C-alpha cells in the first residue's frame, strides 16, 4: 500500500555541512498494517512524515501510494490526495470550538456531500468509537480522549487508504492512550487502512505490527533502540 523508496531529504545549512534529515529510508506498509516510526527527537521522523503526507518534496527517492508516485505532486493534486486518500491524526486536537463533535468529524466530507449525508456517513464511525452519546456536544466540552476519537473519526471519514498519526497519544494518560491505540488498530484493520504511527512513546509503538527505528535520518536496526517497544507486552 505505502512504499517509500530510498527517500532522502537534504537541508542546506548556512556555513556548514548540509543536513541529511532523511537518509535513504525505504519501507513498506501494507493495507491494514500499522507501522510505527520510532526514534528520539531530531531523528527525522517528522520530516519523513511530511514527505509521505506530500507536504515536503524529497531531495531524491519516491513515495508510492497504491502504486502511484505522490512525491512530486502539484499543490492542487497534493491537496486532493490529502483530502481523499490520506487521514491525519495529531497530538493537538484540531477541533473547532463551539462546533459539535459530529460536525467536526464530518469536516472533510462537507467538500463533496450535503450536510445531512456527511453526518449520516460519519455518525456510525463515531458510534463505533464510543461517541454515540456525545455526537452533538461542542468540541470544548469533550474530554481529551473524546477529542482524539473525533479526530480519528475525521481522519477515517473520507475512507483513506493511508493514515498518518503523529504522536496521537501525546496528550493522553496511559489508560486513554491504550483505548485510543486499540481502537485505531482495530478500525484500520477492518477498513484495510495502512497506518504510519510516529511516536517516541514506547507504548504507542507497542501496538504496531512493525516498528521502524530512525536515528539521524536513517533506519536503524540498533537492538537498544528497538528494544523498548518490542519489550512492551502487547494487549491481547
Amino acid at each position: 500500500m505505502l512504499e517509500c523508496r530510498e527517500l532522502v531529504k537534504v537541508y542546506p545549512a548556512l556555513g556548514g555541512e548540509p543536513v541529511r534529515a532523511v537518509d535513504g529510508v525505504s519501507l513498506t506498509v501494507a493495507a491494514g498494517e500499522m507501522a510505527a516510526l520510532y526514534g528520539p527527537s531530531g531523528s527525522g521522523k517528522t520530516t519523513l512524515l511530511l514527505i509521505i503526507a506530500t507536504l515536503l518534496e524529497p531531495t531524491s527517492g519516491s513515495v508510492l501510494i497504491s502504486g502511484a508516485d505522490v512525491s512530486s505532486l502539484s499543490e492542487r493534486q497534493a491537496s486532493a490526495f490529502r483530502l481523499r486518500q490520506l487521514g491525519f491524526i495529531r497530538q493537538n486536537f484540531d477541533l473547532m470550538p463551539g462546533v459539535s463533535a459530529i460536525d467536526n468529524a464530518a469536516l472533510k466530507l462537507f467538500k463533496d456531500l450535503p450536510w445531512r449525508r456527511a453526518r449520516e456517513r460519519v455518525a456510525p464511525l463515531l458510534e463505533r468509537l464510543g461517541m454515540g452519546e456525545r455526537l452533538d456536544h461542542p468540541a470544548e466540552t469533550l474530554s481529551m480522549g473524546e477529542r482524539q476519537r473525533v479526530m480519528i473519526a475525521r481522519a477515517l471519514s473520507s475512507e483513506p487508504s493511508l493514515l498518518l498519526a503523529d504522536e496521537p497519544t501525546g496528550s493522553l494518560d496511559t489508560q486513554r492512550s491504550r483505548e485510543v491505540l486499540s481502537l485505531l488498530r482495530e478500525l484500520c484493520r477492518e477498513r484495510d487502512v495502512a497506518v504510519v504511527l510516529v511516536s517516541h512513546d514506547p507504548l504507542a509503538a507497542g501496538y504496531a505490527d512493525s516498528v521502524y527505528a530512525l536515528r539521524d535520518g536513517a533506519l536503524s536496526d540498533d537492538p537498544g533502540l528497538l528494544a523498548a517497544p518490542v519489550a512492551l507486552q502487547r494487549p491481547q
Partner: protein
Amino acid sequence: MSARNLAHLYRVRLRARWLQECFALVGIAAGVALLFASQVASESLTSSVAELSHGITGRATLQLLARAPQGIPESLLGRVRSLSAVRSAAPLLEASARASGPKGSESVQLVGAEASLRSLGGALIAHTELEPFAGIGAILLPAPLARHIGVVKFGREATLQLYGRSLKAPLYRQLTERQIGGLIDSPIVVAPLFYAQELAGLPGPVSRILVRPRPGREAQARAELVRLAGSSAAVQSTGYDEQLFAKAAYATNQSTLLFAVISALVGFLFAFNAVLLTLPQRRRLIADLRREGYPPSAVLAVLVTDALLLGVVACALGFVLGDELSLHLFRSNPGYLGSAFAVGSQRTVGWQAFVVALAGGILAALAAVLTPLRDLFARDPLAATSGRERALGSSTVAVLSLAGLLALGVATAVLLLAPSAAIAGMVVLVAALLLVLPAVLAGAIRGLERLARLRTGVVGHVAAMELGAARARAVAVAATGAIAVFGAIAIQGAHADLLRGLEDAARDENAFTDLWVAPPGAYNLLRTAPFPAGDEARLAALPGVRSVLPYRGGLLDWGARRVWVIAPSAQASPLLPASQILEGRLRSAEAAVRAGTGVVLSQALASEHHLRIGDLVTLPAPSPLTLRLAATSTNLGWAPGALTMSAAAFARGWGPDLAAYNMLLAPGVHQGVVAGEVAAALGSSSGLAVQTAIAHENEQNALSRQGLQRLSEIATLILLIAVLAMASAIANMVWQRRPRLAKLKLEGFPRAELWRMVLLESVLLLAVGCLTGAAFGLYGQQLLDRALANVINFPVVHSVALLPALISLAIVTAAAAVIVAVPGYAAAGVPAAVALQD
C-alpha cells in the same frame, strides 16, 4: 518588579507582537487625533471671538451698546466719563464691512478707536500709535489680512464697502504680532475714530462706549449707566458678545463634538480589536508569571506598563495627527457666524483639549490591555493557558439583546419626549447597537449554517464554524464597522436633511422678489444703512421694472441671543415663508404682519419668552416695539433664531434706513437683462450691487454648505476610518488564523477554497456590522433631525436617507472587502506544514 525589569520585559515581548501593537497604536492615535482636532476647532472658534473682544475691551467690564445701527452720539462719552463710579471710558465705532484689494477681499470688522482706548489696556492699540496719523485718514491692517488682500505698502488703497457705500482707504501700516498679539489673525481694520466715522458716513456717533468702573463700584457704575442710557443704548458687561456667540455657535460646536466622539469611539474600537488579537499572549503571560510565583500586583504592573506605554505613544502620535487635522481640515469656520461676529482664524490649543484626548487615549489603552485581568484572580493560575477564547453563550447574548432593546426604548423616549437630550440619546443608541450586535451576528451565523447545509461544499460550513468559534472577536470586529457606519449615516443623513431644509428656507426668503439691490457681500441684508437718495426713483423708472420695494433687516441682541430680523415690504408676496411656519394660521399671520401689527418668531424664541400665539411681545429695538405674536417659524437657518415683521414695523423700531431694495419685474422680462440695466443705472461708484433672486438663493445655499462643511469633513473621515479599521481588524484576525488555516490545508483543502472561506467570513462580518450600523444610523438620523428641528429650530426636511445609507454601506463594505482580499489570499497560502509546528 523594578521599572527597569518591567521595561525589559515589555521590550522582549514587543518583538512577538509588534504588528498588533502598531495596529492598536494607529487606532488609538486616530481616535485621539479626531477628539483633539474637533476640540481645537471648537475652542478656536469660541476663543477667536473672545480674544478679539478682550483685545479691544481690555480692563473695561461694562459697555454702553447702541441699539440702533445709527449708533449713540459721541457727546454721551463726556457724560459717561463724568459719572462718579466710572474710572475711565473709551468710545468705539464698529461696523461690518468688506475690505478688498488687488489680491482678494474679506469680510472684516472696521474698528474706529481713539487714544483713550489705550487706558483700558486692550491688546488692540496697547502697542500701536494712533496719534501719528490722526487727521490723515488712513487704516491699519493686521499683516496676514494685508497680505491676503494685497494692500501691504504705505499709501496703498484698500476698498471698503459698508453701509451701502464703497470707499477707498489708504494703508498707514501693517500691524504685527508683536503689536497686537493674538489678534493678528482677526479680520479687523483699525482706523482712528474720526476716520471710521467718515468711512461709515456716521459723523459723530459711536457704536459702543467701553467703561472701566472704579474698584468695587461696578454695580453703582452699571446703575448710573442705565439711567444715562435711556432707550438709546443697552448696558451690558463686556463679555456679552461672547455669550451671544456661545449661543450662536452652540449647534456647530455640539454637533462637531458629537461627531468627534463617534469618530473617537470608532478609533478606540479599532485599537481594542488590535489589542484583542494579543489577548492569548497576554493571558499566557499572566499564567506564566503566576506559575512562577509573582503576586497579582506584579502582574498588574506588567499589564499597566503595557497599557501606559501604548497609550502614551498613541496619544503623542494622535496629537501630531490631530494638530495636522485641525490645521488643514477643521480650519474652516462656519461663514454664517462671521456675518454677526468678528470670527478670526487663529487656532487655540487649550489644555482641556489635551487632557480630554489624553484621558480618552489612555483609557482606551487600559480597557484594551486589561481585558484579561480576570485571569489574575482566577483560582487556577493556569486557567489562561487553555488558549480557548471565551464564547458568548446564548443566555449572555439574550441578556445583552434585552439590554439593547431597553436602550433602544430609552433612545426612542429621548427622540419623542426630550429631543434636547439628543447627544445623550445618541450615546444610548450606540450602546443599544453594541448590545444587540451579538444577537444579530449569532443570527447571521445561524443563517449561514442553514444555507451551508442546503448546499454541497465546505466553504460555508467552515466559515460559519470559524465565526462561531471566535464569536467575541467577531463581535468586536463587526462593532467597529457598525459604529463607523452608524456615525457616517447618522451624520450624513442629518447633514443632508439640514441642507435641504436650509435650501427650502432660502427659496422662501427669495420668493417675494426678482432682484435684490443691496450692499455687496454675502451677509449684506443684516444691517440697515442710509441709502443714497434718488436711487429708488431711478431704479423704478427702468424699463421692465414693476415696482421697487424697501427691505429692512438686521441683528437684534435679545437676551442671550443675537437674532435675525427679516422685514420685507408689506406689499411683498408671499410675505411669510409658508414652509417654515410651525404654529399659527398662515393667512391670518400674514395679514397681521402686513398690517404692521404682527410678528413671526422662531419657536425657540417664543418658548424662551413664554409667548403663545396672540400674545404681545415687546422687542428691545432702539424704540421698543410692541407687536402681537402671529405665528412661530423655524429659525430660517440662523441658529440663535429669527423674527419676521413688515418693513414698516421695522422702521418704527429702528428708523427709516434700508438693507436692500426688492425689485419686482414685469412678467416675461429676463432678470439677467434687467440686472445689467440696474447695475448700469447705479454706476460703478455705488456701494450697492444688484443680484437676481436665483443668484442670491444660490449664494445662500453655498454659504449653508460652507457652514456645514466641518460636518461633511467629519463624516468623510469617519467613513475612511471605518474602512481602515474594518480592513485592518479583519486582516489582522485572518493573519492570526494562519495556523488554523494550515490545519485545514493539512486536511486537504486547497488554497483557493481557504481564500473563499476567509472572504466569506470577512464579507459576513462586514455585512452584519455595516447593516446593523446602517439601520441604527437611520434611526440616529431621526434623533439628530428632531434635535436640530425642535431644539435649535433649524428648518430640517425629515427623511430616511436610504440611498446615502446604502452608498455609505457599499463603500465601507466593498473597500474593506477589497483590502481584506489581499492579506486573505496571503494567509490562505500558509504552508500546511505550519500545522505541525505547534
